[in-house]
């Protein structure tokens, strides 16, 4: 039962994270193409930055206690990076410099998305693997 709960929560968390990052990326791209002004863009991005960090934290934590070490280690670098940003107080997008950092902010998020996709693929594989294990 716990295992089922784990898999469900894993996929829900990963998908939520992907949605949040996608949302931020869309806002950044909109900003780049001038569909939105920097004030709205950054304030909306900043609204989801902390939730994103927290969800990633929960994700790491569930992996840790569920004993899925590999997934945990996969998500650890990102977690560490987030924590570092947070403690340096640099986690929020800065409206005054957003244009100068646009490229960096976008790349940062794309990287996170890539990381998540890898975790996601790995999770599916390991789910399939556990299922086939069970069958045999």
């Amino acid at each position: 039962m716990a295992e089922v709960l784990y898999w469900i929560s894993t996929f829900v968390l990963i998908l939520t994270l992907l949605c949040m990052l996608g949302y931020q990326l869309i806002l950044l791209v909109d900003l780049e193409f001038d569909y939105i002004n920097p004030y709205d863009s950054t304030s909306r991005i900043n609204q989801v930055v902390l939730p994103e960090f927290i969800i990633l934290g929960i994700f790491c934590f569930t992996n840790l206690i569920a004993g899925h070490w590999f997934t945990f280690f996969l998500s650890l670098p990102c977690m560490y990076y987030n924590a570092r940003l947070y403690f340096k107080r640099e986690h929020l997008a800065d409206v005054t410099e957003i244009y100068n950092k646009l490229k960096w902010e976008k790349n940062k998020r794309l990287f996170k998305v890539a990381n998540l996709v890898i975790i996601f693929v790995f999770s599916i594989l390991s789910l399939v693997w556990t299922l086939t294990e069970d069958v045999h």
Partner: protein
Amino acid sequence: MGTENPGRPTFPARPVSSPFAAAPAPQTVTPFASMPGSDPPPPFRPTPPAPPQASSPFSSFGPPVRPGAPSFRPAPPGRFNDPSVPPPPPPQSSNFLPAGNFQQFSAPQFPPAQPRGPPPMMGQPQPSFQPPPAVQTQSFPASFPPQPQMPHVPMGSPPPPPSATTPGPLGTNVPPTAYQPSFPGYARMQPGAEIQPPPMHSANQGNYGPVPPAQSSPFAPNQGGYVQQPPVAAPLGMQHMPPPGSASSIQGLTEDFSSLAVQTRPGTIDQVFDAKELPRPLDGDVEPNNLAEMYPMNCNPRYLRLTTGALPSSQSLASRWHLPLGAVVCPLAESPDGEEVPTVNFAPASVVRCRRCRTYVNPYVTFTEAGRKFRCNVCTLLNDVPSEYYAQLDATGRRVDLNQRPELTQGTVEFVAPTEYMVRPPMPPVYFFLIDVSISAVKSGMIEVVAETIKSCLDELPGFPRTQIGFATFDSTIHFYNMKSSLTQPQMLVVSDLDDIFVPLPDDLLVNLSESRSVVDAFLDSLPTMFQDNVNLESAFGPALKAAFMVMSQLGGKLLIFQNTLPSLGIGRLRLRGDDTRVYGTDKEHGLRLPEDPFYKQMAAEFSKLQISVNVYAFSDKYTDIASLGTLAKYTAGQVYYYPAFQSAIHGEKLRHELRRDLIRETAWEAVMRIRCAKGVRFTTYHGNFMLRSTDLLALPAVDCDKAFAMQLSLEETLLTTQTMYFQVALLYTASCGERRIRVHTMAVPVVTDLADLYRLADTGAIVSLFSRLAIEKTLSQKLEDARSAVQQKIVKGLKEYRNLYAVQHRLANRMIYPESLKFLMLYGLALCKSMALRGGFGDVPLDERCAAGHTIMTLPIKRLLKLLYPSLIRVDEYLLKASVQADDLKSIERRLPLTGESLDYRGLYIYDDGFRFILWFGKVISPDIAKNLLGADFAAELSKATLIEHNNEMSRRLMKVLEKLRNTDRAYYQLCHLVRQGEQPKEGFLLLANLVEDQMGGNSGYADWMLQISRQVQHT
């Protein structure tokens, strides 16, 4: 400079050019027109339409990079007598802008200088050809009739890249060295140079009659019109100008670049540069005017300067240009009397713009179809001319009303914007003053000076009668002043709840100045006395800032903050930092130069959003965290004024002048600025005080003539297909009178395929301006050391690439070469590294002063920046002692001296002037007469206590006159006099000696060493 008047030295070498050259009759000349074209001396120059410019540094002409000289010389002499030999192509064709120019030759308009230019023809109206730099094509007035058909020869055949091998024949015929100014001689730049021309000139005259030397008349290229015969490719290939600096001509070498010889110190192996030969910008900033000849309808360089007056045609070429590629814009620069910017009102029509790229109508658009359409010069779209704007074209294709249309003849023009350009009714000028009244402010006497100055400026505030004004003061509480016009005395309202700021009576705090004038007067009279007994130590700066924001949020405007105590209460409080020496040199160092509390950035963003511009005046004698406070100015197009340890008796005058200028200078309100250019090029980064509202839109809540903005561009397409690139700066703003206006500056620059052209047209001032801004920005994320070495690295890279252009062909060991146009770059780079903002480390400059200097440099226009980097040093004692003085004798004191300790004579009196302050240096054994006369009874006392006031004697009056004259050259800042006597430590050290940028100081290298370092890195890395 050894490089000017390039072609000349070769004359004597020319064997028999006289037959043609001397031939007076134009018709005989015609067939050979192209010949002289490749032949340096200007044989005929009956009435030079342009003033002879021989004496001007050739860089204004563009260096003689590929003048005819080199190509001519090698040509076998017989050639000249043999008309059957196809003459070489017209010089301009082969050396510059090959394809594009020809169209333009047919261009109708000739530079205004020309008395009877050929009537314009169809085609683009730009009179834009590059007067081939030192190509001495003669201009025959008689031969000027319009030449519609252009030689097609060179079309599309670009000049060979500099690296191209030298054409055979050229190589064989080495120029007779006899005529060379001795080769080593040319290297000594300044001295040798001046001497060379005269003898040549006389030789020249024998053949050609009196000729202003080395002049290329603006329309010389037109000459190209004659040269139809030279057919095509064959000769072209052969006679192509040898690539700059090809080995065939040592002469070419003198023309192509400047160089400095490294000498070996006798008896040692140390290498040194002769300090006397190093180039120094003793004439200050020289605006580049080479483009003005090509494109006379460009805006004046005071508004817009590019780092190089040409654009690389391809990304690969751009990547070899290691110096910044960009522009420095000062959209509202003060124009001298008589050159006011014309205002154009299109009403009832809207502003005429290109439908697709939104370019404003400018001198470079072309009208076609009998005037019903115009072609946009930027995107080549054919637009309809609005019926209100329609005018017929005359026979030559010009609009008949051209003379009444300044927007079609001038590069700078102001349009009155209709209502589509407003999001709200134009705002009135708003001034809100936020004044610190804590005990230190009271003690310094700042409040008194401020109140007095504001009062004296009330009549001159721009925008009467709509101007609005308001005041608030703060210590540990915030005080508002109700100045409703019905009151006789202002009413003070105190808010002490700092956590939850509210604004009492929001409507009466900001009042119309003309209605409430008496109340405002009464307030300003009583302000100094109101707080004279205040003993409050605290400063609730953050909450006060929020309150001011709330008061101003309806209208926007200008917020002037007078701050004296480190913010200590409420939100935005700051703490002492920067006194920890251990942080310096570590990765945390840059944090000191960043705002400590994100509150300031947030507030700045909010201010900018609501069109509020913040000017910060800081006065504290203790640490006051300019890094944080300056952020407010940085993102709101404001300015930081810092008066460390302000005392009204000493600094009062400076504050008075600068505050006054801030208040009464013409200001553009709620402005946005954008710079447009054609497809293929994009502006990528912007540097200065503003906030970006979208990728390329600068939000400037208030902007004035003292602010400049820099931007860098990059090529988006691998290859540019156009021959001319247009830049258009548009500043949309509300004038103080309440009119919405658009100020438009248009500039056309050639697109070039040759790296040497980029160097030739480089503008040191703009490059240095961009360098400084980039360096200052770097100090916000990295160590000072890194910022300094980045400057050096960039210079080295730029020179290295340049050296590679020439080094292969010439034996240049022990010789540092650089383009004439960049001869001061190294020195300015050094000066930048030694400037207040970048100098040394912890102990060298107090943190606040460093940050303030950084903020200042980010806004300075080029001229002022260069003056700050390389200030003038003037000796005045001789002038003061002179028995009689004529009115214009002040000229004698305009001689600037190199900024080195060796310039200081211990018997002299010197003025050091960096545009922000004067330092008067009294030599040790200065004649007691001077000291006594100038300082009165104080002369023996400590100079730090003495002040300079006018005494009742001739000498003192003369000195005052000198100072006044120096101040008048630039009124943006008031130069306060600091007096220092030789040997007076430590004052002399930090006031003057540390600022002698050519001297070695502490760990910094001197000028000669710096050059040696750069030269070594250029050669060996």
